[in-house]
């Protein structure tokens, strides 16, 4: 088979295919248009940040925040958590969360009285004297 014949065959195949595409009936064309619209509507209905990669820094910040919170309310290494500890931790969290938004009372309280809390922590960890 010669190269020229192969080329002629390819050209003819392409032309026939294109003719068949141009000759598609209106029903098919209409359904394709509907399919396209449906696909684009589905895309437009999605939140914009799901299709983009800019959520990555936000995910990093969220992960860091979660780690921070878990360290803040976590139990010291080598010490077995008890039900009482867990309850205390949740109460601390409630105190912080219950503060009026924007006032920053809870955080201010924690910062101002840091020495007192350090003293209280040491006292609690030393156990009963008797």
């Amino acid at each position: 088979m010669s190269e020229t014949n192969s080329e002629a065959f390819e050209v003819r195949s392409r032309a026939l295919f294109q003719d068949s595409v141009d000759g598609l009936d209106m029903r098919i064309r209409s359904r394709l248009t509907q399919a396209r619209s449906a696909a684009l509507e589905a895309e437009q209905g999605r939140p914009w940040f799901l299709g983009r990669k800019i959520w990555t820094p936000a995910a990093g910040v969220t992960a860091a925040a979660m780690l921070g919170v878990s360290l803040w309310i976590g139990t010291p290494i080598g010490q077995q958590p008890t039900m009482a500890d867990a309850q205390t931790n949740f109460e601390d969290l409630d105190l912080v969360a219950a503060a009026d938004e924007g006032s920053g009372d809870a955080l201010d309280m924690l910062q101002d009285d840091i020495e007192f809390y350090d003293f209280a922590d040491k006292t609690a960890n030393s156990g009963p004297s008797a």
Partner: protein
Amino acid sequence: MVWDNPAPAPEGAVLEYTKELEKFLAEIERRAFRMAQVALRDPDDALDVVQDAMLKLTRSYASRPGAQWRPLFYRILENGIRDLQRRRTVRNRIMAWLPGLKEDPDGETQDPLENVADAAPAIPERLMQAQAMQRLEESLRELPARQREAFMLRNFEGMDVAETASAMACSEGSVKTHYSRAVHALRDRLGEVW
């Protein structure tokens, strides 16, 4: 927080690539449909796989650069075609086991409307072209799937070797081999006079 490469305004960006995507889909949808129809025969099945491919492309790859859309779209389309062909094979096997539930052996129930004569008089040349295309389609269906895919992407869709390799997830060398074998096999089947 400062980002090295701040993203463009989201609404504007989405609108922009949605427009580009619409243009891209409008440009290829008819050829994609015909290619799916060649592989599957049934126009409704072909429409289904084209629609699925459009949805998957817009959902998962809309944010990719426009140059990647065509190979991605055709890869999704071909996967859809293969899935449907596998389902058909399984269904036909099950039907063969169940007496009284046998389908049309070729899996193509005739639509009565297809047999209604076209109101416009058929031009002989047009009729000959349609017959030639029909023979080409039949021969394409007899090819191995990879050869058919390579031939349709290269010849019908006009993709270059690199783009076809990307769509078929194989090397450029494989594309050349599949395509060359497809052309030879088709010419053998159709004969010199086709």
